[in-house]
């Protein structure tokens, strides 16, 4: 299971890297979203995917899933959401100001 998940994360991060290298600012924003997915899954996987009860003590189970990575990922999700939202509005404002969201056209002149 872990091996499969590691490969999944690897593929997601590879695609995210690819999206980062495209010209469209929106696709870069997609890349940010994908990168956070990949990293979240990787964190969860690398802390072990042992089968146990969900980390709720009312379950009265013998073993529980590790709660710490879940807390870490929860924090990470919220932060990456904040960043993505900001990036999106930035892309929107960039388009409004410059009339393009093509990164190649946003480069500016050499003397700027």
């Amino acid at each position, binding site marked *: 299971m872990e091996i499969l998940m590691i*490969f999944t994360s690897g593929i997601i991060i590879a695609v995210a890297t690819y999206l980062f290298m495209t010209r469209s600012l929106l696709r870069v924003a997609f890349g940010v979203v994908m990168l956070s997915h990949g990293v979240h899954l990787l964190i969860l996987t690398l802390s072990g995917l042992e089968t146990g009860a969900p*980390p709720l003590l009312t379950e009265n189970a013998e073993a529980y899933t590790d*709660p710490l990575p*879940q807390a870490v990922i929860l924090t990470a999700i*919220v932060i990456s959401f904040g960043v993505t939202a900001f990036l999106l509005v930035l892309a929107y*404002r960039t388009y409004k100001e410059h009339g393009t969201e093509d990164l190649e056209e946003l480069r500016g002149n050499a003397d700027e």
Partner: protein
Amino acid sequence: MSLLHFVVLAPFVMAIFLPFLYYKFRSIHTGWFLLPLPLILFIYVATYIPFGGGGMEAVEHTVQWVPSLGINFTVYLDGLSMLFALLITGIGTLVVLYSIFYIANKPDEPLNNFYVYLLMFMGAMLGVVLSDNLIVLYVFWELTSLSSSLLIAYWFHKEKSRYGAQKSMLITVSGGFAMLAGFALLYIIAGNTFSIQEIISQADAIVQDPLILPAMLLILLGAFTKSAQFPFHIWLPDAMEAPTPVSAYLHSATMVKAGIYLVARLTPVFGLTAEWFWILVIFGLTTLLWGSISAVRQTDLKGILAFSTVSQLGLIMALLGMGAAALHYDFIETETMYYTATMAAVFHLINHATFKGALFMAVGIIDHETGTRDVKRLGGLMAIMPVTFTVSLVGLAAMAGLPPFNGFLSKEMFFTATLNVASLDIFNLETLGVFIPIVAWIASVFTFVYSMMMFTRTFTGEFKPENYEKEVHEAPAGLLISPIILGSLVILFGLFPNLLGYTLIEPAMQAILPGITPVGEQFYVNIYHWHGINTELLMTVAVVLFGLAIALNLKKWAEAAFFQRERDPLNRAYDFGLDQLVVQSQNVTNFHMTGRLRDYMLYMSVFIVGLGMYTFFRYNSLDINLEGQGGIPGYAILVIGGLIASTLVLPFVHKRITNLVLLGVIGFLVALLFVIFRAPDLALTQLLVETVMVVLFLLVFRHMPEITKEKKAPLTTTVKALVSGAVGIFVILTGLSVHALRAESDITPISDFFIENSVPLAGGYNMVNVILVDFRGLDTLLEVLVLGIAALGIVTLIKHRLKGDEDV
């Protein structure tokens, strides 16, 4: 603090107060306030001159500066320091006096700048020659470079002044840095001491160290750049843009001799090696020859003097190298011939300071009174400026090495030294030594030629009033005092050279070659005019004859290409190098700073993957262990398969709404995975966030165009695919290694603590929530802050807009 410390510090203190005096008493020339200071310092230092027999006792005083690093402001006054201190203060006095009359007291002339820089220089130079601590010496050394550049660019509105200042700064400071590195090496070799005297006391052990050669080369680089040795001499002719008092003071008498001082000071250490001898002699003689040949081509009087200074500095440097041979012999008590060279070096040092100072001042007068320094326009000034003419004649004759002036004596001693060295059988001299007197002789011929040229083309010939912008007449008396004093010294030292013998030369020689005389015994310097008819005299006669022959035929050769090239060809190398430095660094920057996000992403990816892969192989840390895994339920396969499939499709879809749907599918599949891996809170949050995100994207899409289609560029696409593939593989390999590490080592997760204590300590049953708000509440606090900042940022982006023409 001793009085000697104040000798060094007094000019700096004075420099602080001088601007106040300048603004308070505008009608009085600021130089008058300054004049007493170098004079007092000169008299004070002169009290240390041993007028009786018995040599000179060195004086040492220490003030702690940074004792923990061994850096102390130690002043050390022995014969060598005293000689230099006397030169600096003595010529300093005369230069200040001269500059009072040279630089007019006009409202737009920033006299306060001039004198503050000059005082800074004087203090720094005194610091260089009086410091016993290498670091303190270095500090003062760089201060001389700085103040020298400031003085060269005194008329900073002139392009050439700025060029000259920048050039001298670049060259001397890069030499200074090399010297600092050399000092650091010396510090290590000598067992953690910066004190020159302590280093000298263990010289025998130090020269055995393998680091001695790099240390020596680095220090010599500093000395050579400062003292304008070949090929670093190119800054000196361009420094002639400075006001003439500055040229006379810095670029003939004092600063350019700082390198000479350093070489002389460290001779007791490095002189024991053969490399020291060879480097000094070869570079010194090259500089001597090159300088004297280049001087002949100049048409600017100051240009001639600049190259002449270069060549004379080379002469002194070569003599110091030859003198170091004395340290190599153990039986020096019986032979005096080996230290003739050192004696000649010290003697010529004094002589050069006197006659070159006088000549610069005379040239300054000519420039001041006629408005030009170009020898093509000058001529026939003999009868119009009789005093200047006399001083120049004395100075030029001394420079050319004619009797009865002091230059003759030092030139004779120089020939003696070269002949002696050529006859030595140490340092493999028997084969190459014969070239030393020959080179010296050729250089002397050229020296004679340019001295002669300066004389004939300035003072003899026909006076043409139309060549000058103003009415030409003799300079005012005040301007003439300093050159007359220096000219008189030239004659005085020429006629009575032994005045300097036990007062200045002997103490200086004791410092350069310690142990040359047994304790209690005196070593006597005797300089005679007449040795009888010997080789040296015949060489001088030949110099005069050949020199006259060349000088008289100079008109014929003036058309030759050699004479047309006034600028030193090495300048082209310097300018080209400097230009290329700028151009190439621009090229390098333009090459990699493309302004494209994808390029920077590419660099980062390649670097991270490269570093990671290197670490895998270098430390053999790639470890794949497939054991210890949980099973794979069928529905999980389905979800993961869907996730991978939609991810892989994403880069190929160019319609943005399809993109967005895919992104939403991926997000919900990730949420499903969280459900499968028993993370209910994560699944909940992921679902919510993904929904909001999709809504946000849709909102933005409403205002934006369809995604621009990438232009077909197969190579770039391939590169992108390869790099992202590499990143993916690297992540996978890292993940597998981490997984293997987890399986192989028995790391107990910290989570057992949370599971056990969630209820007893925090009173909560949802462990994830307890961790978020109780055990690790600070993370959550800051995460809330992040969201707040993002929200504020978004509001600012949308709400606060600048008007169209406003620019940020």
